[in-house]
Every structure is written in C-alpha cells, then in structure tokens.
C-alpha cells in the first residue's frame, strides 16, 4: 500500500483513500479529494514535514499525516 509519505521529490500519485477518519475531514477540506493528483515538492531539512502540490497549491503536512493518505 503506497502513501504520500513514500513519494520522492517530483513524484506524483492519485489519492485513493484515507486511513485516519479524524484527519480525513481536514484533508478533504484542504482539497485532498480521492481522484486528485498530488506531487511531492518539498521535504524539510530533517526529513519531516513534507509539502505536496495538490489542487493547484502547496500543502504541507507531517510525514505521519502523509502516511494516512493512500495513493495509486
């Protein structure tokens, strides 16, 4: 099962589903919808947090949060 946390800079994926229901509402509101494309754009100096391009803007999140978003 691949998640956003597995992406390297420049790689993309399509959001399929969420693991954590509590987080999913926040992520949905921020435009991370199933079927949306995400591209990894930044990884912070110590490997965490990360930032992805989604729905036309840059969204940052921690690695463990990224690991709750399943992609294909």
């Amino acid at each position: 099962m691949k998640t956003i946390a597995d992406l390297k800079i420049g790689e993309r994926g399509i959001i399929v589903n969420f693991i954590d229901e509590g987080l999913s509402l926040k992520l949905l509101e921020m435009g991370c919808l199933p079927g949306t494309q995400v591209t990894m754009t930044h990884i912070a100096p110590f490997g965490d947090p990360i930032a992805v391009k989604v729905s036309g803007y840059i969204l940052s999140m921690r690695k463990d949060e990224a690991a709750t978003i399943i992609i294909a």
Partner: protein
Amino acid sequence: MKKSPKIALIGNPNAGKSSLFNSLTGLRQKTGNFPGVTMDKLIGKWKLEKGDDASILDLPGIYSIYPKSVDEQVVINILANPEHPDYPDLAIVVADASNLKRNLLLFSQVRDLGIPTVLALNMIDVAESQGIVINSVKLARELNVEVAEVNAKKGIGLNGLRLSVNKTLESGFNSNDSLPMDYSVEMVEEVKEKYGDTDDYHALLWLSEHDNLAQFTVQQRVEFDKIQEKYHWNTQHAQSKETMARYAQLNEIVDNCLHEMPVEEEPVNTWTDRLDKIFLHRFWGYFIFLGILFIMFQAIFTWATYPSDLIDNGIANLNDYLKTNLPPTKLTDLLTDGLIAGIGGVLVFIPQIAFLFLFISMLEETGYMSRVMFIMDKLMRRFGLNGKSVVPLISGVACAVPAIMSTRSIGSWKDRLITIMVTPLMSCSARLPIYTVLIALVVPEKSTLFGVFNLQGVALFAMYLLGFFMALLSAWVMKIIMKVKEKSYFIMELPSYKSPKFSHVLLTILNSTKAFVFEAGKIIVAISIVLWVLASYGPGDSMQRAEIQVKTQHPTLSGIELTNKISSQKLENSYAGYFGKLIEPAIKPLGYDWKIGIALITSFAAREVFVGTMSTIYSLGGEANEENSTVMKRMRAEINPATGKPMYDMALGFSLMIFYAFAMQCMSTLAVTYRETKSWKYPTIQFVYMTALAYISAFVVYQLLK
C-alpha cells in the same frame, strides 16, 4: 433596508481577506474584543450609499465552518448563533480565484447557513498567469449569488463589490434551498424544538459542533449528546460525507465556469519555487532565518532605543515641569510619580512593540513565516512544541501578551498549552532595562571576549539565550508530564510569496500597538498608582516619625541630601518597606535585602517597575534625565553591611538577573493566560513553576558565585 448593516468578511487564510478589509476601510477601523475571548476583532466602516456606512467585520481565516483551532472557533461562534451581536446581515466570502474549488467549499457552507452572501473573486491575475480563466457571470448564475471581481491588494473592483452588496442587501436574498447531505428530518425537528427555531443547516451545525459553541450550557450539551445517540449521528462521518458531496457539486459548477488554458506540463520556476529552493534549504534556510532574527533583534534593541529614549525624556521633562509648576501636594505627587510615571512606563515600549510587529507582519504578509514553521517543526516537536510555536516564541522577546494571543493558530490543544506556558520565559522587552542596569553594575565594561566581543554585550546575549533554552527545557518537561493523548497536526498551506503592501503593514503595526497600549497599559498604570500609595503611606504615624527621626539624627544636613535621607527613611517605614522586611528572611539566601525585596514585590505585578522602584528606594530626587546613571551610581555605592564590601557584586547581580529572567512577574501575562486557557489552573501553574524555577536558580547562582 436596515440602518448600518453588519457585513462580515469570510474566507480562507491567504485569500486576501485582510487586504480587502484594508482597501475597503482604510484608516476607518478600530480594534475591539469579541465578547468572552481576547481575540482582537477588527471593525471598519465602509460607505455603501449616501450617508449610509456599513460596519465591516474582519474575521480570522477559516477553511470550513467546522473549526479545528481556536481562531476558527471564534468565527463559528458568530456564524452559528443568529442571536450573536456580531451575527452579520451579509457575508462577503473572499475567494482566491487561483484555487477556486477549495475556496468555494467555505462559500457554499456560509451560503447554506442562510446568510445573504456575496462572492468576491480575488487574485484573478494570479489565476490568469496560471492559465485559468473564470467566467464570473456564469459563476454567479450557477451559484445563484452576486459575484464581484476584485483586486483586494490594489483596491480595484470595489465599486462593483459595493453594487453587489447593495443589491443583495436590498433583496435580502439567500439561496440555501437544499442541503447536499442526508439527515433525519425528525432529528432536526427535535433539535429545533429544544433549542429554538432555525434553519436545518444551523440545527445540524449545533448538533455537530455543540461542544465548540459558547451559546450552549453544559446541560444543553449533554442533551445534544443524547440526540446524537438516539439518531446514531456520527459527526465525523457526516461532515466528511457532506464535504465530499459539496465538492462533487462544486466540481460541476467550476467545470462549467472555469476554462483552463493549456500551459506547459510543469510551470517551471515560478518565483515561489525559486525562493523556496533557498528558504527551505537544509543549510541556507536556517542561516537566513537566523540572519532575519539577528536584524530583528538589532532593530528592537538598538534602533528602537532612540525613540524610546525620546519618550522617556519627554515624560521626565513633563514630570519635572509639573512638579515645579504645580502646588507641592499629595495630589501632584500622585499625578506625577504615580499616574504619569505609570503611563510613561507603557509608552516607552511602543517603539519596540512597533518594530516587532513591523517584522512579524512583513514576514507573515510575504508568506515567509509558514516556511519558518515548516523548517522548524521537526526541531520544535522534540520539545513538545510545534512549528507554529516559533512565532509566539519570537514575539515573546517583545512582550508575552501578544505572543500568547498568537498561539491561537496552533491547532493542537496540548501544543498550544505548552507554548502558552513557556512563552513568558523568553526575555521580554521589560526585562531589558533590568539586564542593562545590572550588567553595567557587575560586568566590567572594558573586558572583551577573545579580544573582539564586548563582555557586557555577550552577557546580555547570554541572558536571552538562557531564557530561550529554559523555555525549551520546560516545554520538554511538560511534554513528559502531560499525558494527553492528542494528535497534533500540521496540515497547512504554504502560500505563494507576495510582496508586502506597506500601507497594510503599517495598519497592522498601528492596530497591534494600540491594542498593546490599551490592554497592558491599563494594568501597568493601575499598578504604578498602587505602588505609589504603598510607598507613600505607612501604618499609623510612622511616616511623620521617620521624618522627625532623620531631622534629629542629622541636624547638620540640609537641602537635597536631607530630602533624600528623609524619603529613604520614609520608604523604610511605609507599607512597601514593611512588606520588604517581611519577606527578607525568604530572600536572604539569594543575597537580597529588604530594599530589593520591595522591588521584588512590586515587580510581581509588572517587572518593568524594577528600575523605577530601585530609583525610589535609593532615594533619588530631580534629574530624571540621568535617572539610569544615577540609580546605577547609587546602587554601586551601596555597601553590604554584613561584609563591608559593595552590595552589588557579581554574585548578587547574576542572582538578580536570573531571578528576573525566570520569575513570573507580569499580571498582564497571567491575565492573558487565564483568558486563553479559560481556567485559573494554568496561570496558577505558570506562576508557581516559573517562580520556583527563578528562586532555585537564583539561589544556586548566588551560592556558587558568593
């Protein structure tokens, strides 16, 4: 049409809401407090039609009406409660056209609350540069509301917006016909029956978010839980489903109204991409951040001293003038030494506060601040803090009060609480004069470190570092003690870089400084007056006896020396002196005597009174211009009766500085902690732990250096 309609500005963070507010209202704005919370609210006037001003309320940015942090809660508490004094007659939802779908989610929720809504489409130029063209006429038709294209920053399109607002106000039109969600009509009816008639969406909002809504009592919340149980209502599930359904609707609308020009695959190397390569770099990112901090410190502690000194001297001159020209009564004393000295104590901080907010608002306006949070998050998390704790900690260098207020954007309660608890350990600007006086007393001026750095400067810098490291250490301890299993999250937008608009930065400085002067000012002035009373009066006729005693013991003295001797004797016999003697045994192990004891007691209200109290205690008359140098001379001349050596040696100086660095000596901070945590528990803990820390550290330092 209603007189003076209330219009709320609502929108995602970074959508340009505040820019629009500033463009609409200019200087016609004032800060206030939302009832029950300290959140500064900004209200401005906007001319709608001839002679008719609308009041515009600028609300914190939100992504949806389901709050995830305290500043979001503020907005929902207004929108959920039609009885709220700030409940708007009309909402202008500001949307970033370059990210239309996400911005429309909030719009659709606000519209469904039954508030007449106008959509202000902002940043169309940004959208167009990305190849996105929006047909706003079609969008208005599909959404069934008035849509106005604006450029909030440049103030373009305001007349069109005014037209749309007027139209909507006149018709009072709201277009919430059907909600994109399934719910039991019976359940909604039960909510309405129990809590008052309203529309379905409000009823559902109450049911889902009742724990976050101040309008409901504890008993009512229990009832809500029962209804939820009865109808098997799962808030999280329902809200997720609703959000998806809304996006599905919006998808269709946006597809119809938005035309995406084909641009090359990746719009390579925008300014934001290029800058992020540097600002988020593993080395340069931190290097630049430190550089910016360095310049900020320079500004606050070097450049700000010039206007501060001017204010200080101005107040001193005013006091001298009043003292010589008014009849020498108690009332004059109260006015000059009590009231005006107190007001002066507030005013001297204005330049520092203004410089601080200049930097903070520039960093925020440009979008750089979220990069700092991004690169600091991992480091801060080790200590139980959060990337977003960086802003409060930096602001704490000027004043803990606005710093604690700025923790509201931290979504996790635990992270926010720890940040609030440790922020007062950052050396605020009120500690600066104390450090300055004591360092000048005990650190030799001529010495240098490695022949380059001035030792006094090094000592000052060390005091600031000490405060910072103690804040981290305390946060780390609290992280271990607090057993709250709460997930903190860090899902936030990294906005594209924008050049700051200077007039907006100036407005922020103006508003924040005003808020500081009136909030903190009230308390400082009150304390100065109380202090003056305590130092001017004593039990029974002790004050008169003190005067007679001096005159009989020193019959040869006259003039200024006699007055000084008398006031010093009087102080010893005043209520303040009495309290100082009372606590002397407790502070003896730290090296302090009863005189320092008085300063400690008065400092518990606000530490900025330290230097002033010291100059009162060491009985200084006149020459307020040279107050600092003279208070220093007096302190240097003070002899320790036990040893016969100078009182202010290295051990006492550092012991005092450490005490002031760690002790909780600020009522305003305690008050703001109370208001932000809504409980006396946390200000109490804050007071106790910081004071204990101060006492123990000062004790250790004194005993080691003695």
